[in-house]
């Protein structure tokens, strides 16, 4: 009897210990990454990092101001293109297509697109835009990110819209509301917070992408505000600087890594903030 009890207690502790270790194993790497990025990145952050253009190899100073602005521009344009399309497609799936064949086809394809390697999307946009346009461009980079964003936004907005109960739709229709008003004025209102959260997570996800930008927006050592010219981005800058043989460049790459991590953190925190408001809304 007593032995049996001891054995149960032992098994309990072992299981508890293993699961705790696994949790720690996961967290450790995250903390390690954050620590390295902080320790190695912080020294690179100074005024010229934020305000100056990249310096030629071997020269002191220089910054990544153009890459910061580039990343923001690429992400904003990608959001402007990808989010409305994604939300409208999600609306179709949840409000109009429902169980129709077209809707299941769209659902299936967007599930495939979610898991498509981002580099494949980059090559696709290269063939679609970069080739015909005769060069890398801000527009191509944005389009690649918009395509990566699209399925995430489609599925999250569909899920969020589905959370609004059918009885609410029926109640609005029973008042004599046309379908579009039900969708825009009632259903969207119910799903707003969830959809904002979904969009922000999608933005966070694409703004850290490197591979699709290598073939599309490429890089630029100067300022660019034209849609049709190559554009610097933080992620591609990290990629290039980290592989270069210059000590100062490595340091700047760490700084850029710290900056992009902080930017993602802010977006994710904002998303969590909106998600938390959901229950009270």
């Amino acid at each position, binding site marked *: 009897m007593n032995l049996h009890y001891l054995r149960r207690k032992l098994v309990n502790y072992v299981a508890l210990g293993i699961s705790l270790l696994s949790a720690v194993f996961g967290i450790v790497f995250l903390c390690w990454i954050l620590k390295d990025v902080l320790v190695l990145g912080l020294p690179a952050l100074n005024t010229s990092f934020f305000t100056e253009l990249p310096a030629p190899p071997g020269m002191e100073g220089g910054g990544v101001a153009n890459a910061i602005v580039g990343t923001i521009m690429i992400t904003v344009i990608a959001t402007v293109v990808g989010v409305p399309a994604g939300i409208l497609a999600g609306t179709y799936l949840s409000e109009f297509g429902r169980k129709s064949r077209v809707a299941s086809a769209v659902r299936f394809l967007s599930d495939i697109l979610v898991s498509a390697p981002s580099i494949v999307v980059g090559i696709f946009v290269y063939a679609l835009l970069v080739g015909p346009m005769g060069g890398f461009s801000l527009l191509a980079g944005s389009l690649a990110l918009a395509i990566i964003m699209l399925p995430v936004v489609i599925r999250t907005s569909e899920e969020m819209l589905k959370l*609004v109960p059918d009885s609410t739709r*029926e*109640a*609005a229709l*029973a008042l*004599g*509301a*046309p379908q579009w008003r039900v969708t825009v004025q009632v259903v969207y*209102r*119910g799903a707003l917070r969830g959809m904002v959260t979904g969009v922000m997570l999608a933005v966070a996800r694409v703004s850290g992408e490197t591979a699709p930008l290598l073939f599309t927006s490429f890089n630029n050592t100067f300022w660019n505000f034209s849609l049709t010219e190559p554009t610097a981005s933080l992620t591609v800058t990290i990629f290039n600087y980290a592989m270069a043989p210059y000590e100062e460049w490595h340091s700047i790459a760490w700084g850029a890594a710290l900056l992009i991590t902080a930017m993602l953190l802010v977006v994710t925190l904002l998303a969590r903030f909106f998600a938390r408001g959901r229950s009270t809304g």
Partner: protein
Amino acid sequence: MSDKMTEKMEVKGLNFYYGTKQALKDINLAVQEGEITALIGPSGCGKTTFLRCLNRMHDLYPGNRYEGEILLEGKNILRKGIDLIKLRSRIGMVFQKPTPFPMSISDNIAFGLKLKGIRNRGEIEGRVETALKDSALFDEVKDRLNTPALSLSGGQQQRLCIARAVAVEPDVILMDEPCSALDPVATVKIEDLMSELKSNYTVVIVTHNMQQAARVSEYTGFFMLGEVMEFDRTKRIFTNPKNKMTEDYITGRFG
């Protein structure tokens, strides 16, 4: 039935099918203007299905089919090409569970008013207040008209839904077990409200609660297995039913 009454709605030989399954068989009854008509019967007998025929709610889902006629002031609402949006603005509905919209209390009512084309803010505010007063909710919510409707209690939410349905001044109001999710206090409030509504509106109510049917309604229809077993004045149904089944049901011998 009385002669001076006018028939608001008349149902003639209505059959209804969910796909191939027949849910309603040859329904014939008349809804009198300015009266409350109650529909009673065991679960799954077709009361709610019938109610949802009256504003053609079934059209929202594919595969449903009607046969026969439902006349609203003499015009068949099952005819082809009828404007369902217009029809539903004339025949309001209150559901079993409260269905407040995810917006503020006053916006819930303003939503319907805006559908009617009322744009003037002053008029909307005035009519929101009237609707809330009519549904005996105003004193409870007057200080928080801009708070979310979902923060109200269940009974308050249901009265808000009634206020919302009434505010657009429909000809007929359909109520699908409006008190089944509410406590007795809230139920009394809603029953009082129904009696008030009677003076201006025609009401059709589905209920599982026989006392409720007896208390509020003038006419009662007893449904079973998709058929109307008996339809008559409520008094007669509850005191001297013609059909043995009706008697068994209202005396609680089955169902």
